[in-house]
């Protein structure tokens, strides 16, 4: 096993002092491969803190370009990146922060055609997306591949985080049915309280670091809910749903489906 060099010892000095990480944990981080799907409000802090922690290979997947209205919360981006692909702008920011990492910029929409091939190349998947379609897709794909998925989502002034570990429940166990079409506003119409995604996205990064290093207790079978206005945190426990169509006792879903049709949005 390659030992850390002198510069790495300096860069990660604060991790080497932590009993739960230490040298072995840092080497595990440096060898790990994490995919962040969606480099927006949640993906920004998640990517920054995972790069700072020394996750060796970070995949960034997003089809969008940086818009001025993103800069209110997507702190990895800046005005020099306006109109450029988010993954390119974010990849540059991560390389500036930590040049020793490999950053893969994947300028694509993750969909039912490419999800399995893409997720298969990584150890942990971080959900930074903002649609029900993508959440069900990532959950199913991660389950089918046996990969842990760190889920985070935000809505107005509230957010939530949990970890879906195969065999311990999935997004469908938490939300068996998507909301009825039209019941939810499209994301551009949903306000987001500044700094809220910082909290949720950073907890997603912390959970990823714990999954890679084996440190502590991951948020498995627990959803952490945060209300930024009331400033409260609540934990809700959940179990794998034995009737879940994908991870239950008698699964009926064995491959990815058409998630646009499933959640009732036009393709």
């Amino acid at each position: 096993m390659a030992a850390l060099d002198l510069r790495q010892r300096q860069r990660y000095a604060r991790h080497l002092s932590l009993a739960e990480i230490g040298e072995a944990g840092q080497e595990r981080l440096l060898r790990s491969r994490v995919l962040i799907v969606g480099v927006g409000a949640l993906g920004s802090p998640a990517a920054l803190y995972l790069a700072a922690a020394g996750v060796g290979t970070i995949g960034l997947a997003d089809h969008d370009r940086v818009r001025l209205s993103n800069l209110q919360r997507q702190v990895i981006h800046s005005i020099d990146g306006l109109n450029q692909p988010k993954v390119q702008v974010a990849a540059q920011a991560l390389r500036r922060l930590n040049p020793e990492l490999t950053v893969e910029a994947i300028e694509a929409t993750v969909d039912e055609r490419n999800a399995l091939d893409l997720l298969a190349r990584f150890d942990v998947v971080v959900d930074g997306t903002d649609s029900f379609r993508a959440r069900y897709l990532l959950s199913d794909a991660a389950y089918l591949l046996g990969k842990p998925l760190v889920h985070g989502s935000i809505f107005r002034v509230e957010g939530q985080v949990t970890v879906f570990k195969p065999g311990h429940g999935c997004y469908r166990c938490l939300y068996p049915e998507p909301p009825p079409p039209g019941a939810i506003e499209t994301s551009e119409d949903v306000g987001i309280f500044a700094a809220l995604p910082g909290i949720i996205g950073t907890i997603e990064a912390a959970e990823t670091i714990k999954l890679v290093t084996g440190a502590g207790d991951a948020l498995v079978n627990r959803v952490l809910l945060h209300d930024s206005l009331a400033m409260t945190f609540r934990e809700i426990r959940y179990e794998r749903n034995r009737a879940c169509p994908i991870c239950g006792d008698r699964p009926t879903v064995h491959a990815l489906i058409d998630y646009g049709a499933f959640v009732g949005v036009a393709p």
Partner: protein
Amino acid sequence: MRHHRQRILDEVGPAGQQRLTSASIAIVGVGGLGAPAALYLAAAGMGRIGLIDDQRVDLSNLNRQVLYSQSDIGLLKVDAAVRRLRAIDPAIRLEARRENVQPSNVAEVMNAYDVVIDGTDAFETKFLLNDAAVLLGKPLVHGAVLQWGGQVLTVLPGWPCLRCLFRDPPEPEVVQTCEEAGIIGAATGVIGSVQAEEAIKLVLGVGTPLSGRIFQHDGLRGATRITEFRRDPDCPVCSAHATINDLSRYVDQVSARGHVLV
């Protein structure tokens, strides 16, 4: 356009956005906590941000201080921070102050801003900021981190202060610094983002601040706790018989380590 996604919130709206643009925040210590706080306050459109720090960027900062890049090593943190924040929103007035808060300058620094965020890492400075906030009647968002977690509480005039909960800083021999004990970047990210959220709520006058409550986060266990606490009727700084009562005589009333002398 830039702030569309928060302007459409009832809690913000055009009037709230105007309030943010007119407001000023001091971030004392632009390290692990100050980095996310500064990023989110700049993103939200805070009108004026004061960055107070006398240190330079070091390689060992980069596991958590995501405001900086490898090419910033050796630069003053406040200068590197100004450059990064300007790239997010050039309209924000950024004030780089290359100094540490001390009894001699704390009133001048704090009086120049509406809300103060504690991003420092020394106990005596945290207690100095608390004492000054009480004596000056200035809202202070306290934060502290170690290893995988940390805490936030907000000190508002008339509400309990840090010394109501912790009379004195712990003895130096019983506490470990971040250097000795270690720190994970994401812990600073959670605590610093909560501090930014608190500051934004104070400026907007919305929601319930962490006054009379302390938020404690244990990232390793994925556990959070919010505990209510009351004013200590014998608090050395915020009670009727306070012995810390004059910032100009602070060094006579509080030791260099932040302990109450009288």
